[in-house]
């Protein structure tokens, strides 16, 4: 195998979203450069070793390793404590869809009680409300006058700050939501049909011209 494939193999392992099997590497290369390219498993193994030798010699932070399903790039373990700083950030999970939904209802319907939230969502929302309270995205503000005098929830300044809003009136209104999200796929399709018709017409016209010229 030509040595030029070393960097091709590196690029494939680097970009793959899954551990990359040796067989896939060979398939990818043959797909692009033709099936008569001479490249066998030993070539790939040798090439990976070569890359690793260069990484070692030049004190780079990573290696290619082979795990169960194939090759992956991995940072050397000696940097684990530096990477811990990144892990901490990464481990903070995204607000779940359920929490987001609860937050959205509170944002648009505030002040709102738990029974009201639950009547919209159709499910018990204790956990979600607690999560949002903990994250200081919502806060309790008094009690409703309705039976049982349930607690009222409103969003916080923290909430506004996160979404870059000056105040609650800056939130998009349901009317504006509908406007942006209306079934525009349909509209767009019609636009395309129309533009195609224009194109055809122009082509027809041009063809007409040509015919006239040859007459």
């Amino acid at each position, binding site marked *: 195998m030509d040595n030029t494939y070393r960097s091709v193999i590196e690029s494939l392992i680097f*970009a793959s979203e899954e551990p990359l099997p040796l067989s896939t590497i060979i398939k990818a290369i043959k797909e692009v450069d033709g099936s008569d390219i001479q490249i066998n498993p030993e070539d790939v193994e040798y090439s990976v070793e070569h890359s690793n030798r260069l990484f070692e010699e030049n004190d780079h932070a990573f290696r290619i390793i082979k795990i169960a399903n194939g090759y992956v790039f991995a940072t050397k373990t000696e940097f684990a404590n530096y990477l811990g700083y990144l892990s901490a950030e990464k481990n903070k999970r995204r607000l779940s869809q359920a929490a987001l939904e609860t937050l959205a209802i509170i944002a648009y319907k505030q002040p709102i009680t738990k029974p009201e939230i639950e009547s919209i969502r*159709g499910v018990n929302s204790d956990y979600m409300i607690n999560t949002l309270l903990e994250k200081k995205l919502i806060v309790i503000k008094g009690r409703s006058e309705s039976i049982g005098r349930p607690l009222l929830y409103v969003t916080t300044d923290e909430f506004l700050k996160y979404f870059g809003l000056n105040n609650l009136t800056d939130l998009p209104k349901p009317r504006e939501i509908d406007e942006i999200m209306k079934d525009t796929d349909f509209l767009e399709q019609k636009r395309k049909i129309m533009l195609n018709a224009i194109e055809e017409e122009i082509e027809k016209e041009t063809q007409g011209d040509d015919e006239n010229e040859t007459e």
Partner: protein
Amino acid sequence: MSFYKIQLDGFEGPLDLLLFFIKRDELDIYDIPISKITGDFMEYLEIIKDLDLEIAGEFILMAATLMQIKVKMLLPKELDDKGEEIDPRMDLVNALLEYKRYKEMAEEFMIFENSQQNKAFRGYFKSDLKEHKDELGIILKNITIYDLMLAFKKALENIPKETFHEVRKINVTIDQQIAYISSRVRQGKRLRFLELVTEMKDKIRIIVTFIAMLEMIRSGMIGLRETETFNDFEIFGVENG
């Protein structure tokens, strides 16, 4: 033929169509022959209007603008502060140039997009960072107002069916409006276009009425006359039309 095919690839809206005419006929953008371009434009409007009213609306608006300019070109020119004549085409020319400017930048963006899509980022990270599920570590990462809006919209859509959205269907057809205009014209009074449309509340009704009017002009049922007001014109019936 393939030449035109390339030209129209990614063709968008009435401004784009005008730019196309200007380019095709090698017109001077600062001295657009407004009669000719209006004629070309109206031809295409004919194709469009059968296809879709909502989209045709944008083209009709441009057609109205073009006709307005055409009329103004025939009248004594207005003067600006310095006493110089104002070219009625000026606003349109500026709009075309402004649009063209961003259309050019869209091409630049495409070049960036192209080169960026030829690069790949690292795909597999699980070999580096340990993941522990930490319930308290929830953050608002990569969540935008759009996601919030979407969540709210979905929540409302999924409410056990108690609320209803009122959907109002606007029943208006070109034929109806042709009949309507005919009846108004037959009443004999001077009928002005603006007067006709100001009583209409929906944009779509105005657009349909406008198309109906164009249709009637084409088939010779009515004619148009200029009025003292620049933006308006008078509709009159044509005998035996």
